[in-house]
């Protein structure tokens, strides 16, 4: 074993006490320092943590930001979601390729720069965008791509690529990012001024049970999309007998087209941490974990500094706000590029330093979560809402929205609209109003809730955003009349195929079959019987998959078959003589023809 690797690795492992649950942190650090996690490094880590080699290897292979082969000194990851594509990310990618003289997925010969795609990095409102190491670059064009390459060749430090700082805290010293907040509409609940400490002090004047009761009275439901009542989740977590409990903030905002948590993390970190502290007090936790997606690493130092300030102000730490016996602290767990980690049990796996595989439920995290302790996993926005409920009271909160959907919702609107960005609207706002706010009156379709949500057409634009009509985590992708919706469905399926963890067959195989089915139709080789087949297959994947990914990944197919069936029907035609139109005999024998050197006698 080379001494060099030892010299790098040993301190990294020692710093976390050779703790197996810190494996992801170790690997992130090794990746950062060495550009990859080599076989030698895997061996040594396995030895130091006293685990099997395959356990380390499986984690390396799972996360997109870890690699077994060395990357270049700088890694350019071009965001490849449908919105970025609509804004020309493919042209940008070609420009990077030609300028660097390499293809996607390759590294320049001098080992300096790697180029690759990555799914949505949460910048759809300023697309096309890319991550260069941890630095976000937005509004790319083929020209900027060329100048970026030229600058990186001169000086490999990507922070120098940021010429103009974004607004708000994006300009903060510890962020120094060109990202813009794009807050287009502020509502009364989330995007209002906040004085750190106000909500927490009110919460601490109540008993934990009263805090939970207030959250229940406010009828707060989870803002990640599923809409589970937050008070109930806290109550269940509190009710489980255990030595320790955890409150975990899901800041793995991976649903393509959503970027609201980015803005909350940038502008309202105190509100979030306060919500977590309140949650910790309510369920009886002494530790909170923010699971921050790897793509938002540029916010980490800033968030750490806010936590440090709150420690100094006594808002976290020992005896929070002077309340004896209430000790609560928050740490940030970085993700490493895996959409599935937004699923709460996968997120817990990832916090434990494992592959981000979902776990079986039951037991639910409220019974047995992080390291087996009862845990409450809540969305960033949910925790912010909880803080506001403490600040202004449950009645004030539930006076916004409707009976079953109280409060406001942050929407991330992007795509074919004049004003992409963040909108805080009352729950029960109609899709039509939302589209007109964003300047997208001519929209042909609106993807509500990201790829895992619903594709909605004009005939339903009168319906509203709420838990009864269209529940959403906040992703709103607008598709104008010029867009081919089947291409959109195809892009979504590509995403799910890539992001499926592969544990269960319906999801691992089913999504590939769905994608092939759509490709067949896009190629003009579909036949009418393909439509009921796709429907049946989609239902099977939904019903038989283990976690939320496979249970929702067929939604693009199902919702377009339901609402935009003509898009399919106009492309399919009955097959001749009962033959499958996508089977081409001459193509199938082409290899054999070239091997044996004679033509086929069949046609």
């Amino acid at each position, binding site marked *: 074993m080379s001494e060099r690797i030892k010299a790098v690795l040993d301190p990294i492992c020692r710093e976390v006490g050779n703790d197996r649950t810190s494996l992801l942190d170790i690997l992130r650090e090794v990746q950062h320092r060495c550009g990859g996690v080599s076989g030698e490094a895997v061996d040594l880590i396995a030895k130091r943590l006293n685990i099997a080699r395959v356990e380390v290897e499986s984690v390396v292979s799972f996360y997109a930001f870890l690699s077994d082969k060395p990357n270049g000194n700088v890694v350019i990851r071009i965001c490849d979601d449908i919105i970025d594509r609509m804004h020309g990310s493919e042209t940008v990618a070609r420009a990077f390729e030609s300028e660097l003289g390499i293809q996607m997925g390759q590294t320049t010969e001098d080992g300096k720069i790697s180029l690759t795609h990555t799914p949505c990095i949460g910048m759809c409102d300023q697309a096309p965008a890319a991550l260069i190491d941890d630095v976000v670059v937005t509004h790319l064009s083929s020209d900027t791509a060329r100048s970026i390459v030229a600058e990186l060749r001169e000086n490999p430090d990507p922070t120098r690529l940021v010429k103009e700082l974004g607004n708000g805290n994006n300009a903060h010293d510890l962020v120094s990012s060109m990202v813009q907040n794009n807050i287009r509409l502020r509502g009364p609940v989330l995007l209002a001024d906040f004085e750190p400490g106000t909500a927490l002090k009110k919460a601490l004047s109540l008993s934990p049970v009263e805090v939970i009761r207030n959250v229940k009275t406010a009828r707060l439901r989870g803002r990640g999309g599923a809409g589970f009542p937050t008070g109930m989740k806290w109550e269940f977590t509190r009710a489980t007998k255990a030595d320790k409990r955890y409150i975990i903030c899901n800041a793995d905002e991976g649903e393509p087209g959503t970027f609201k948590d980015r803005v909350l993390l940038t502008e309202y970190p105190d509100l979030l941490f306060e919500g977590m502290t309140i949650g910790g007090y309510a369920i009886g936790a002494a530790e909170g974990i923010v699971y921050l997606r790897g793509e938002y690493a540029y916010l980490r130092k800033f968030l750490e500094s806010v936590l440090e300030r709150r420690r100094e102000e006594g808002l976290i730490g020992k005896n929070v706000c002077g309340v004896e016996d209430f000790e609560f602290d928050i740490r940030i767990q970085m993700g490493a590029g895996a959409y599935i980690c937004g699923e709460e049990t996968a997120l817990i796996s990832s916090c434990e330093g494992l592959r981000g595989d979902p776990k079986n439920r039951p037991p639910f995290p409220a019974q047995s979560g992080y390291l087996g302790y009862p845990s409450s996993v809540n969305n960033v926005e949910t925790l912010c809402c909880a803080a506001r409920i403490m600040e202004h009271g449950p009645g004030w909160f539930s006076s916004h929205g409707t009976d079953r959907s109280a409060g406001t919702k942050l929407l991330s609107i992007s795509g074919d609209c004049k004003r992409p960005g963040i909108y805080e609207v009352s729950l029960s706002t109609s899709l039509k109003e939302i589209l007109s706010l964003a300047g997208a009156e001519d929209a042909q379709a609106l993807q509500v809730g990201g790829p895992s949500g619903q594709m909605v057409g004009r005939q339903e634009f009168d319906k509203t955003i709420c838990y009864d009509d269209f529940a959403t985590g906040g992703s709103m992708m607008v598709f104008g009349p010029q867009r081919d919706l089947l291409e959109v469905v195809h892009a979504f399926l590509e995403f799910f195929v890539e992001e499926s963890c592969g544990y269960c067959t319906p999801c691992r195989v089913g999504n590939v079959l769905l994608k092939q089915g759509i490709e067949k139709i896009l190629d003009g080789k579909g036949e009418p*019987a393909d439509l009921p087949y796709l429907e049946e297959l989609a239902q099977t994947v939904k019903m038989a998959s283990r976690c939320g990914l496979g249970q929702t990944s067929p939604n693009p197919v199902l919702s377009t078959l339901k609402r935009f069936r003509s898009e399919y029907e106009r492309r399919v035609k009955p*097959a001749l*003589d*009962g*033959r*499958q139109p*996508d*089977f081409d*005999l001459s*193509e*199938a*024998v*082409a*290899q*054999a*023809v070239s*091997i*044996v*050197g*004679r033509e*086929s*006698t*069949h046609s």
Partner: protein
Amino acid sequence: MSKPKIATTSLAGCFGCHMSLLDIDERILELAELVEFHKSPINDIKSFSAQCAVGLIEGGCCNEENVEVLRAFRSNCDVLISVGDCAIMGGIPAMRNMIPLEECLQEAFVDGPTVHNPTRAIPNDVEIPLLLDKVYPCHEVVKIDYHLPGCPPPADTLWEALVALLNNKPISLPYDLIKYD
């Protein structure tokens, strides 16, 4: 009224499904009462001369001749049934799908440890149908109406399915007939 005709074939299969069909034992006499066997290895009729009610397909498609036969079945049979795992999903022959065709042939005829082939030639007679790039399940080549799983499907499964189909009744296969572990 003439009896409905039935045709069968084995493509890239092992004839196990046909053996299973013969396993219906003395009920084969009953079957002969119900149907007339047309093109089939059982009676060695080589080509279609009449439209058949049912075609039973064993095996997937591994070469161009399989495709031609399958297409002829599709044109000449009202109802086509994929019988057994090879027809339904390629089965054992499809194990080669993970390996490029050239490598397969090289290993089978030249480099394999038990191969004696001093000329290192890969068989190439015009009589030998060209192999497809991979083994295809039947429904990827033509439209298939029904699938009867099993390796092979038990005789009783085949019997129940055929009798139900020929009597125009809904098929009911008890769990025992479609349980394979």
